[in-house]
């Protein structure tokens, strides 16, 4: 919705047109972005922690893509979560469940189609271009494909100088010093790598440069979109250690998007499981792994390979493929593949509810002990 539309609707509201569809939609949008009192929020979103020092609060986030001929794909629907300063929230789920879209929508690239993204107590979704740009340094992103993350025509020193120049962080000497510091922090030798270009590096090295670039503006939050999926296992460990070091050193808050549960277990302090654009389960990694409540999470956890050749393969893995997000099933979205699905699951959409302290699940028939 553009500023002009907003103005027109405000005039319509003054004149008393409350019944018009566009006005209703506008009112609903404003309602969704309304600041909530802690009690209200606790009631509407039981898994939120309004009493903590939160960096990010996302409420009822929706991302829809127009795929032509009037078809709309709901990549993310009504996702709500919050992020306490210093924590690492892992977002897991199979390919196409909307995890990456969620990460990009938080950064407003592209803008979500509905809901509220509140970052450092500022509402990002209703911001203008300029205001939003001023928020950008505080939130950075690291991408899945390390090689495509760096411009092949620019030497590393230019890649790292770009954010510093855009925000006028010092003169050339200061920028050079900062670049050396960042490269050093990312375990790269500045003298060797400064003048090289991305194609002269391995994937792991490129990913370290990307991390260094994300750190250049001293961000508060970094969204890591599958940062290690494209790397081989030995390098994965290096990158994860580097991320952990950086987090400790710069006091970062991370959103860690991944489909690899083994990696997630190693890095996260909170895990959010997504299926077809919805949150199914959220809790600490120990709870999620040891005390799994959602049938989908159990299938995900069960699919993690265990290095023991004598161990029998787990038989209760889910079958088939996720349904199309253009036409999701009614009620619980997982019911088409769920072993426990009943009539209730088709009619009523399960809401997140607390099953044990800090562990929430959206399921009508959670797994019993």
């Amino acid at each position: 919705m553009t500023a002009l539309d907003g103005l027109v609707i405000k005039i319509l509201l003054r004149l008393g047109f409350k019944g018009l569809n566009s006005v209703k939609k506008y009112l609903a949008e404003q309602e969704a972005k309304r600041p909530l009192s802690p009690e209200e929020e606790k009631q509407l979103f039981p898994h939120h922690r309004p009493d903590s020092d939160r960096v990010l609060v996302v409420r009822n986030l929706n991302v829809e893509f127009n795929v032509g001929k009037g078809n709309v794909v709901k990549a993310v629907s009504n996702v709500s979560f919050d992020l306490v300063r210093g924590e690492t929230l892992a977002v897991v789920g199979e390919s196409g469940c909307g995890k990456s879209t969620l990460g990009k929508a938080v950064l407003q690239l592209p803008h979500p189609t509905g809901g509220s993204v509140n970052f450092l107590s500022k509402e990002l979704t209703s911001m203008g271009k300029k205001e939003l740009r001023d928020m950008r340094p505080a939130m950075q992103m690291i991408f899945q494909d390390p090689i495509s993350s760096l411009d092949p025509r620019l030497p590393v020193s230019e890649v790292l100088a770009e954010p510093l120049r855009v925000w006028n962080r010092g003169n050339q000497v200061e920028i050079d010093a900062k670049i050396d510091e960042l490269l050093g922090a990312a375990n790269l030798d500045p003298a060797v790598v400064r003048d090289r270009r991305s194609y002269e590096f391995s994937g792991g090295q490129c990913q370290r440069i990307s991390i260094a670039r994300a750190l250049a503006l001293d961000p508060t939050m970094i969204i890591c979109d599958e940062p290690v999926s494209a790397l081989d296992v030995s390098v994965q460990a290096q990158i994860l250690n580097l991320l952990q070091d950086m987090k400790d050193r710069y006091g970062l808050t991370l959103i860690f998007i991944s489909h690899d549960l083994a990696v997630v277990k190693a890095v996260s302090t909170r895990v959010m499981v997504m299926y077809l654009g919805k949150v199914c389960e959220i809790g600490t990694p120990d709870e999620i792994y040891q005390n799994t409540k959602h049938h989908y999470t159990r299938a995900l956890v069960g699919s993690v390979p265990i290095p023991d050749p004598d161990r029998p393969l787990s038989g209760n893995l889910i079958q088939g493929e996720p349904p199309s997000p253009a036409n999701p099933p009614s009620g619980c979205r997982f019911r088409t593949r769920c072993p426990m699905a009943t009539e209730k699951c088709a009619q009523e959409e399960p809401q997140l509810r607390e099953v044990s302290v800090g562990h929430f699940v959206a399921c009508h028939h959670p797994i019993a002990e």
Partner: protein
Amino acid sequence: MKTRKSRPVGFYLAGSWLGLMVFIGLFGWILPLPQWDEAFFDDLGVGPFSPRHLLGTTQDGYDMLAGLVNGARLSVFISFASVLIGGGIGALIGITAAYFRGKYDLIVVSIFNILLSIPNLVLSLALLSVFAYSDADNPASTNRRVMVLIASLIIVIIPILGRISRGSALQWTNREFVLASKSMGTKSFTIIFKHILPNVAPAILSIGFLAIGSVIIVEGSLSILGIGIPGGASWGSMLANGRGNIAYSPHEVYLPALFIALTVISSNWFGDYVRSSLDKRESKI
């Protein structure tokens, strides 16, 4: 360390021929040559390597070498001017269309398609005969013809290079480094000039050099059709003037034809080499 690939001989040959043409186009008037439109009535249609005329004269007594040097001036000027202006505008429109997408992209692509459906020779012919109409009573000046010719060639080149750069830019606008750049708050203008243009440049340059070749050919064709540059002032027009005398002094036709051919081939080759030397990344994989 970077190892410099040894370039093939063709690169140097093509490059030096193009360089020579540009040089004589710019500084040909300094050379100690007779005036190109001065007729030598003592030497009508002498062959190449004659005492006073290195490349001979035409049946009308014009010095061939002076004509070719003067022709280079016009041909080089027309081709470089139209490709630089048309290519610049086309690349800018194409890249911004690929970057911003949406309705702007849709409109740009439709206009490109409409322009591309007009055959370039027909367009130039139409424009020249309307805007630089010329008959025995009121002949259009050479300058006016050159300007109209360049304008019509620009119109032809904009959609060609625009489409190439749009197609090439589309591969880059969705790369993650562009998204990373956006996410750190870089302005669109900076992203386009710093990240997308340098990556699209090899494709634009190679097509640009190809276009220089085609423009020279179009200019020649128009002169042969009788509506290009009149009076033997360009290579094409020398060819047009000389074609009636091919039986008596074949060098009148062969020499301008040779110059056109060499320049076109050189610009194509040179474009290829420029692209492959700029495209380090692709050649690495």
